[in-house]
Structure formats: C-alpha cells, structure tokens
C-alpha cells in the first residue's frame, strides 16, 4: 500500500509532489491536452480555451478566498480592468501584446489596493460588500471615461503575437492559453508551499491568532489581494485576446458569483479544484444543449428564448447541491475516490 504521510525531512513535507508517479501522470495529461486539437472541432477547442483562461482567474480568486479566506465579490472588476488594460495598452500605447499581459495583471494588482486598503479593517461580510461596491465603481468609471475606454461602445483588441509569431486562430491561441495556465498552476503550487502561502492559510483560519504568531496581517492581506488581482487581470487580458473585443457588458457582477460558484464546486483552496470547478460550471450549458438535442426540436424551440434563465437556474441548483452534499467539492470527491482505490480492499 502506498503511504504519503511518512516524511523524514522538512523538505519532504513542503515538496511539490511526494510521488514520482504524480509527475508522470501530469506529463501524460499535459500531452493529451497538447494533442486535443487533433480531436476537437472549432467549438470544442474554443470551449477548452475558455476553460483554461477562466481557470487562471479562478486560481487567483481561490488564492484570495479559498487560501487566505477573504471573500471577494469584486473579481468581475479585476477581470474588467485586465481586459481593458490589455486593449488600451496594445492599441493606444503600441506595447507588444505579450508584454502587455503581465502589465494588465499589474494594473489590476494596483487597482486592488483600492479594495485592499479598506479591507485591512474589515472582515467577512463587510469585506464582501465592499468588493461588490468596487465592481460597480469600476464598471461606472470605464463607462464614463470615454476618452480612454471608448465608453459603452467597447473596443477591439489586437491578436496575440510573440516575437513576430502571430497566435491568431483557434488552434494557436489554444496552445497559448494552455501554456499560460500551466505557468500559473506552477506558480500557485509553489506559492502555496512558501512562507507566504502558509501565512495566508494561518490568516484564513484565525487572523488574530496568526498575528500573535508573528504574521504581519496588513502585509499578507494586501499581498493576497494584489496577487489574486494580478491573476485575474491576466485572465482578463487573455479573455480580451480570445474574444478580440472588450465591452463593459461582458463583465457583470454575475461573473463574480459564477467564479465563486466555481471554487465552491471545485473545492475551496485547492489548485486542481479551481480548474475542475471552472470546467464543470462552464460545461454545464453544454450538457444542457445535449439534453435539448435528445429531447428533440419541439423542446428546443420552446426553450430557446429562456436559455439564459435555465442556465442561471442550473448554476444556482449546482451551488446549492454542492454546499449541502459535498462541501469539499470536486476536489473532495477526487480525494475520497482515490483513497478508496488506494486502500482497496481495506477501504471503508
């Protein structure tokens, strides 16, 4: 029987992976994803790209809400800032698209200080509402600063190109999004095992106790906000690059709620949970379409004008079901089923 708990050194406790097999499985999964364009049509490929891009933002929210324990309803705002920063930097300032992506993240990180600084004195629900206020304010500023953002008309975005190689087209951008997601997963996994990651965990579990243990609350809370906003800003830039057009209406408050649903469905504070959650929530409408196909044309035409509400209903029901039945989310299901098979036939 494999055992993962026996460690003889401190380095072993904080290492990225305790089993060499994990690396091989990861590489195999990555290789499968790299071959995916061969199987999927343009629709399927677009779907996967969206999942990758959204996962980056959800990883960021997961760091803030799942790991550091600060509820945020303001991530739609950061996503919006990232997307507009990408559009404006590449169009008006002629900055290379690849360089603009981290800059978009940086702009979002700086903007996060607007919420981060009041958050130093706020907790829990007061904080959630302040971040909600932030989203409203950002949307408003973007709508009314027409000289910079073109207001409600939105603006087109240049395609991604790296050193003269253009990433136009579904297939090329798919690889760009995959590479970006792998990079951010790697950063997150490493961040979680450093002093910073552990400080965030302590802050989530009890902030006053954490302070008594010598963790500078102000520094780590602000850092959590900035890092999380950076991720989401980068995700926003990628969204802009994928859709090639930004508009305020795309980034409603509902996006923040959807993102929270993703980390709940996936499992709070888990890296693979964030990605699984994003995938499940984004694939739900596809399942719905399959169901309609099975039910025939009559049902489809009947439901066609209500599709948005039916999707909303599904999100809500999925959130409620996961909270009631599986609070650990998909990551919890994964852990339990893995343990079941590892310990079989002794599993309970």
């Amino acid at each position, binding site marked *: 029987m494999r055992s993962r708990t026996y460690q003889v050194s401190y380095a072993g406790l904080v290492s990225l992976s305790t089993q060499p097999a994990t690396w091989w499985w990861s590489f195999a999964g990555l290789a499968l994803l790299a071959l995916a364009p061969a199987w999927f049509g343009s629709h399927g490929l677009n779907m996967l790209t969206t999942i990758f891009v959204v996962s980056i933002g959800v990883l960021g929210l997961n760091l803030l809400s799942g790991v550091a324990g600060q509820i945020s309803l303001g991530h739609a705002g950061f996503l919006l800032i990232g997307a507009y920063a990408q559009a404006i930097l590449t169009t008006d300032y002629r900055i290379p698209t690849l360089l603009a992506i981290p800059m978009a993240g940086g702009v979002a990180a700086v903007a996060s200080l607007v919420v981060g600084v009041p958050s130093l004195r706020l907790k829990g629900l007061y904080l959630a509402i302040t971040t909600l206020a932030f989203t409203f304010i950002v949307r408003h500023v973007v709508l009314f600063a027409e000289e910079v953002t073109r207001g409600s008309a939105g603006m087109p975005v240049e395609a991604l190109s790296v050193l003269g190689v253009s990433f136009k087209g579904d297939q090329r951008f798919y690889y760009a999004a995959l590479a970006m997601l792998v990079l951010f997963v790697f950063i997150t996994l490493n961040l979680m095992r450093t002093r910073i990651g552990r400080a965030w965990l302590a802050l989530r579990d009890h902030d006053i106790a954490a302070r008594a243990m010598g963790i500078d609350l102000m520094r780590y809370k602000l850092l959590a906000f900035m890092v999380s906003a950076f991720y989401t800003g980068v995700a926003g830039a990628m969204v802009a690059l994928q859709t090639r057009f930004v508009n305020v209406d795309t980034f409603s408050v509902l996006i923040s709620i959807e993102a929270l649903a993703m980390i709940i469905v996936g499992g709070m504070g888990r890296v693979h949970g964030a990605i699984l959650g994003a995938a499940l929530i984004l694939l739900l409408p596809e399942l719905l379409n399959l169901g309609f196909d099975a039910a025939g044309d009559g049902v489809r035409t009947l439901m066609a004008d209500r599709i948005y509400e039916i999707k909303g209903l599904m999100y*809500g029901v999925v959130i409620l079901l996961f909270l009631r039945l599986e609070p650990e989310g998909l990551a919890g299901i994964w852990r339990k089923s893995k343990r079941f098979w590892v310990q079989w036939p002794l599993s309970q």
Partner: protein
Amino acid sequence: MNYFLNLVTSGLVIGSLYGLVAMGFAIVYRATGMVNFAQGEVMMLIAYISFSLATIPGIGFGPLLVCVLAVSVLLGLAIERVFIRPMLGEPMFSRVMVTIGLAVVIRSVVILVWGVEPTAFPRPFGNAVIRFAGLALYPGQIFALVSLAVLCVLMWLFFSRSRIGIAMRATSNNETTALLMGINVKRISGIAWALSAVFAAFAGLAFCLMFSLEPEISQMGLRGFPATILGGLDSVIGGALGGLVIGVFENLAGGYLGRGLKEIAGFVLIIVVLMVKPYGLFGQREIERV
C-alpha cells in the same frame, strides 16, 4: 432652492426603499449573523406573486396587503426551513453562498414563470399627484415613506417591548447562552426570516407602486447594500436611517455633480465610511477571543 428641495424629497423616497431593504438585511443578520444575498430576489418574487393576486377581480388594497403579508411570512419560514437551517454550524462562507445560490434560482424561476417584460402594476390609489407643503408626491411614493415610518416604530417596539424581540436580541448577543436560558433559537431564526420577507414585501409593493413590475426589482437588493453598511449590519433602525441618508446623498450627487454619479455615489460613500468606521455608523464592534 426648489431644485434642492425636490432632490431631497425624491432622495428620501428612494431612500425609504433602500431603508426597507436594509432593515430586511439587518434583521436576518441580527438573528443569525449572516447576510441574506437573496433579499432582492425575495422582494422580486413577492412583488410578482402580489401582481398575480392583484389581478383577481374585485380585490381591494386592504385584502391584497393581508394576502401578500401572509404569503411573505410563509415564504420566509419556508426558505429558512429548507435552505438555511440545514446549514447551521457550517462555515459562514458556505452559509452566505447558499443565499447567493438561492438568489440565482429565484431570479431564474420568476423570469421563467412571469416573463421578462415590465408590466404596469395596478394603482389602487390612483395616479394623481398629491401636493403637500409645496412638495408634489405620487401615492406610491407616500406609500413607501409611510411604510418605512410605520415599520420603524413597530420594530422599535418589537425589540424593546415584546418577548420575542428581546429573545432575538439575546440570541444575536450569544446564541449558546440564549439556548441555555430556554430560548428556542431555531424558532427565533425562523421568525427573523419571516420578518425580513415582510420587509421585502413592503419594499416590493412600494417599488411596483412607484415604477412598474420588472425583473430590475431584484437589483434593489444590491443597491440596498450601501444603506445596510452605513447603518451597521446589525442595526435595524440604523438601516432605515442609512437608507434615507444614502437616498438623499445619491440624489444630490446625481443632481449637482452629474455624469451618472447617482448610480455609484452610495458605494463610494460606504467605502470611505468603512475606512473610518469598520462596523458602520450604528453597528456594534465585534469582540472576539482567540
């Protein structure tokens, strides 16, 4: 000066709507320590149900109000029993997310059942402008102001005189001690949700009487947050005052500064207020032990 007075009056009217919403938030927070993010959606659902009731031929405003209140009490109790009580003891994050999930579900169901187009709500008091001391008000606006005032007084009496109100204060202060003193904590939570649905009913009716029946009603829940925060999440009367202040502030900002500032003035105000007073103007500071 006349312009100023008009801005203040319409600010007070819209503020009384915010106040009603904020009181609904505060009473749930007081009894159960959580924010009901579905308050706006409950308000929307009750407004649509009351629209269906109002189309019954020959129903007067009195019977309608009684029916709507009965429906809202039942709705509040049902939500508490089915969705909230099973989550007792779970982390705050999960409990709040339940209300967010509920909000999404209610909004979708209401639109699926009643459709998305705005509909004119019957006007039981007519549509004639009532002039009073140089101010012109519609009957719906007077309804909003009067309901806020009456409910404020009732709430003050409820919390200071009635047995249940005092039990509710005890529960919010310390749940375990309240339980040991023989208070039925579960019942208190049910009553709080029923009361918050009653506030939602008044807010929903006032909204329909002033504007029309439309899915936008649910937005009032989010727009009521600044009022709730300004008054302090745990102060019911504070929420009413906060609503009036926010309403007037928004209207003045929109009227004198312009550029659509009306929409966000409240949110800007609370970010500033929270930096100075993290528990709102009337909220109590939470003291916790490690």
